[in-house]
């Protein structure tokens, strides 16, 4: 079983919808949680990272961490066709020097 599970999708929603992307994990020692966006034939781009539990908001994006359920979410409000991409979650422990554990990504399609 993988340490981080992410539904590969594709997830297809109409423009303007609220999108919810999720990852589950098994290692309770994870403390840093990251969301990356990757467009086709590009490198991943960091959207935001959170430390420990709670919410973090940046514009139309909100990241949420539920450590009791080992579950993280990324919400996108007022979704736009330009949000169509693959979204990757990644996480790591407090004492790791180099190792991020990545999800395989969810492909998101926003239909105009």
């Amino acid at each position, binding site marked *: 079983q993988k340490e981080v599970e992410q539904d590969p999708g594709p997830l297809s929603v109409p423009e303007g919808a609220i999108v919810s992307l999720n990852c589950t994990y098994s290692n309770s020692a994870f403390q840093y949680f990251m969301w990356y966006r990757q467009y086709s034939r590009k490198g991943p781009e960091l959207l935001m990272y959170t430390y420990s539990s709670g919410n973090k908001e940046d514009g139309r994006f909100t990241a949420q961490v539920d450590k009791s359920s080992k579950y993280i979410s990324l919400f996108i409000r007022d979704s736009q066709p330009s949000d169509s991409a693959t979204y*990757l979650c990644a996480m790591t422990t407090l004492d790791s020097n180099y190792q991020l554990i990545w999800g395989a990504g969810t492909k998101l399609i926003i239909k105009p």
Partner: protein
Amino acid sequence: EADIYQTPRYLVIGTGKKITLECSQTMGHDKMYWYQQDPGMELHLIHYSYGVNSTEKGDLSSESTVSRIRTEHFPLTLESARPSHTSQYLCASGYLYEQYFGPGTRLTVT
């Protein structure tokens, strides 16, 4: 947009050739990373560096080697390319939880 560059963007090469994938960053980051990414799969760390003259192998076994002679430059070399090396190679720099990626090199070995 992050100031991290990779060349070439695409490379098709025959088996047995030696290749070097270039990666440069202008952000002054000490930490740099090389990842391998296959379609629909997780990123796998193949090499990382904490600074000049510091390089380590990641968790994914790789036949490649890296060097870090200057802070801004972190090239990856394959001495003898094989079809199993066909993949996308991504270079990144920054803190572990705040990494900035280059555009990647898509390598095909025939």
